[in-house]
């Protein structure tokens, strides 16, 4: 893939064994796209809700909405201050949701003539999570709804889990872009750090295989990016390894044994 100068982007997605046995399609989607200036990029992953009929299409609409929103907000140039990025990140989040809503509403209008389901149920059938990042190093803006996760790798410092799902055990109902109460669960933010040498956006199917856990004194379990996560950034920063190799890895039996979910990852890494 053509990448922004000095950075390389690889991505892969694979259907989980659990979905194969239930004859469901891969309901994850991802997108990587350069904005008009050629140096700012948008990356997004989305995980369609397994039990919803149109969630794979919902996931596609979600990543496309993030790309459209990135164009709207950052397409004419990126801010040059942290405050400017904060404002832009908030707008990016709002536009991502608005564009998604418009696309889904348009689809639902079309379906209402064909289907008996009420509009609310049709909308719910597009249930999906979304994690999107606009990257113009050293600035990164993100928006998240649901249980995808974002890891950044710092040199020095190693990997940090920046965006994560709530504690997975006893987690409440997953929040989707179609959830009525999603507004209370949208997170967005800005990272400014010239030492970041890689970002990885993952759907929750990779949580078991790539993250570790620790228990805090209050008894709660929290995820963290273990030091060995850096090996992925090391490996894919080299010229050779590509999307196919990343796909081979996440399709491996090692990963299949960690989770039956669909698995999707987008990595952007500074070239070695």
């Amino acid at each position, binding site marked *: 893939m053509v990448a922004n100068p000095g950075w390389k982007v690889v991505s892969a997605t694979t259907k*989980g*064994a*659990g979905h194969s*046995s*239930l004859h469901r399609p891969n309901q994850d989607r991802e997108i990587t796209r350069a904005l008009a200036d050629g140096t700012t990029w948008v990356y997004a992953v989305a995980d369609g*809700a*397994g*039990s919803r009929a149109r969630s794979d299409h919902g996931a596609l609409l979600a990543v496309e909405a993030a790309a459209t929103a990135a164009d709207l907000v950052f397409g004419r140039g990126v801010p040059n201050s942290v405050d400017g990025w904060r404002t832009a990140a908030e707008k990016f989040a709002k536009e991502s949701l608005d564009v998604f809503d418009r696309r889904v509403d348009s689809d639902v209008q079309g379906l209402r003539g064909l289907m008996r389901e009420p509009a609310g149920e049709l909308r719910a059938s597009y249930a999906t999570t979304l994690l999107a990042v606009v990257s113009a190093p050293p600035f990164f803006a993100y928006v998240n709804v649901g249980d995808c996760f974002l890891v950044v790798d710092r040199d020095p410092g190693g990997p940090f889990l920046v965006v994560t799902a709530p*504690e*997975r*055990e*006893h*987690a*409440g*109902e*997953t929040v989707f872009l179609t959830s009525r109460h999603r507004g209370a669960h949208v997170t967005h933010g800005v990272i400014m750090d010239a030492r970041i040498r890689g970002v990885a956006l993952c759907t929750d*199917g990779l949580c*078991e*295989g*790539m*993250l*570790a*856990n*620790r*228990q805090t004194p209050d*008894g709660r*379990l929290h995820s963290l990016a*273990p030091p*060995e996560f850096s*090996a*992925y950034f090391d*490996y894919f920063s080299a010229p050779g*390894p590509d999307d196919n*190799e990343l796909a*081979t*890895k996440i399709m*491996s*039996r*090692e*990963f*299949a*044994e*960690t*989770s*039956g*979910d669909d698995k999707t990852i987008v990595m952007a890494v500074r070239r070695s």
Partner: protein
Amino acid sequence: MTPPSGLDALPVQPAKSRLLLTLVVDTSSSMAEGGRIDELNQALQNWRGELTRNDHIRRHGEIALITFGKDHVVALDPSGRTAGPSTEPYVPVSEFNPPTLEAGGVTPMIDALQYAFQLLSARRQHLRSSGIPLVNRPLVYLMTDGVPTDSTGHRSDRWRDFAPVIRQQESGKHLLFFAFGVDGAEQEVLQGLAPQSWRFLSNLSFAEVLTLMSASIESAASETSRSKPAEEVYRDVNARLDKDARIRSFLKGNG
């Protein structure tokens, strides 16, 4: 041996979460009638192979086997390595090798369920303290051919007091509970203990009961079930079991 290099060397974290399966099985004297206990033993052995064929369950699953009847209430070693009560009631599904069960005694069903819930809670706490979450809710299965009794063998209605405990555990997303009864079981008890997840299987073999359990495990342990309320999971499981039953019926009719 050459260490892995390149792509193969990229680390994958070991599976952390666990799926806890707890079987609470009737071994009271009625199970001796008509060779039922032998049929159950054979079915459990066959089921073992079925369980371990599923990569995800083999890798994440832990199983406990609690009997009620012979020797009152006992948590047996599900790996079959030691006879009698086990100090480690949960073993990995990959090590599941059920011991031969024997029938005898009365039917202390509620004592067994209370004990099962205690063991489950202890195992959950131990896993948490080791940094291991339960992403999927534990599944508890009751299999019986009788009605609950007290220690003298008289019918007991204590199940009415225990049913709210199960509802509380379900609403807290601490577990999912299924009750399977065969001829001799009382539908009122099954329905009272598991209003949305009970099955009375007249004329069905234990092998068929265990096949239903497998289907329910796949359905209840799927990632789509993780965050759903118990009643929604039970609805999905029932839909799956009904569909499987229709397919079996169709195949028999055309067999």
